[in-house]
């Protein structure tokens, strides 16, 4: 047993507190928005928007209104727009409280790799390097292992880094881990997962 995508997103949503400005990455992180409940959260889209609303109703799509994944979205009463330099100014400047994003690998020292696999198609880092370098708290949401069953929670990343020592918390299908001095600390296990299961699936040092 372990968490599914939606349960991981729901767990990640617990990280968010009232009044936070937050940037959500593509994939499972996007689902986090469905689980914030009554909390007053403002979503940033790094292409130049604070206060991102839901997808539009059919027929109401606006080509001038997209999110960082190039999907059509809507605005809210609180929405503001700005240019890319200001958008990354607020990211780099530490104004965004948290970023929740996916990863290919995370290491016990907080290193994050999520932008390229050498020898494979390179699409680019987009805003990921700026986000992990600048926001208050970096929360990774990802499967604990890859499709070959190998741990993605490592002693050291093997892939080119997106950021060095930037990750604060890792939420996977198996549980929640924090990056602390000397390695990772288990915060909680997913439903039906034991600490031994979590340790067995983790290559990184657990302290």
């Amino acid at each position: 047993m372990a968490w599914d995508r939606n349960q991981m997103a729901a767990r990640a949503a617990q990280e968010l507190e009232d009044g936070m400005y937050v940037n959500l990455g593509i994939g499972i992180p996007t689902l986090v928005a469905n689980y914030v409940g009554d909390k007053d959260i403002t979503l940033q889209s790094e292409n130049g928007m604070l206060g991102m609303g839901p997808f539009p109703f059919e027929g109401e799509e606006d080509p001038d209104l997209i999110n960082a994944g190039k999907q059509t979205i809507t605005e809210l009463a609180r929405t503001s727009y700005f240019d890319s330099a200001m958008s990354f100014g607020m990211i780099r400047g530490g104004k965004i409280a948290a970023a929740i994003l996916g990863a290919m690998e995370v290491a016990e020292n907080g290193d994050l790799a999520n932008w390229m696999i050498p020898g494979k198609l390179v699409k680019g880092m987009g805003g990921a390097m700026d986000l992990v370098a600048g926001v208050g708290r970096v929360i990774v949401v990802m499967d604990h292992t890859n499709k070959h069953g190998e741990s993605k929670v490592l002693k050291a990343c093997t892939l080119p880094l997106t950021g060095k020592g930037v990750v604060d918390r890792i939420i996977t299908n198996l549980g929640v881990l924090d990056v602390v001095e000397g390695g990772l600390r288990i915060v909680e296990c997913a439903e039906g997962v034991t600490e031994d299961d979590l340790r067995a699936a983790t290559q990184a040092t657990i302290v």
Partner: protein
Amino acid sequence: MKKVYGSAAEALDGLLIAAGGFGLCGIPELLIDAIVDSGVKDLTVASNNAGVDGFGLGKLLDTRQIKKMMSSYVGENAEFMRQYLSGELELEFNPQGTLAERMRAGGAGIPGFYTKTGVGTQIAEGKEVKQFGGEDYILEEGIFADLAIVKAWKADTTGNCIFRKTARNFNPPAAMCGKVCVMEVEEIVEPGTLDPDHIHLPGIYVHRLIQGSHEKRIEQRTVRKREEA
């Protein structure tokens, strides 16, 4: 020094162009078409993305007019990948915020700045590292483009511009860093029509202005069902 060129297009080859837009949102469609028609080659283009196959900057890739791209994300374009992997096209990856700031800095007369984005990654290779407050930062250089091609929603005849929603994106910083900035808009109005307090980009940054109609293609059409509301 070579001063005599065989054609007008050849004489214009090799320009560094800063282009506005994010994905296909807010891109200077009309100016891209004009550059295709001009036939200028060996262009270096600083733009967050490279369009899609057959649209946006993808058109200039199809015609092989671009020698080098400075971008943060190019995943939507198969022809781009083909040219890049075969070595026909140079690519300089820039973190998105670094690219935007490089343009803004260039336009603001700042030749370089230090940022923590990319420290300890491939992006930092070969760049000066300096410590501030015990933390490492890398030196990034401002972009001083020969030409900026940008798109706004409305402008008055003096070049004061207003953008619409997320179509603003890279357009203001790209406009700022161009020695010559050509702006295309959906509507040109008389001075006094736009509220001076609502101008997003003052006309001082805009040297040439054109009006036209835009296709405004949507890259990822996503909707929700009305029942869910």
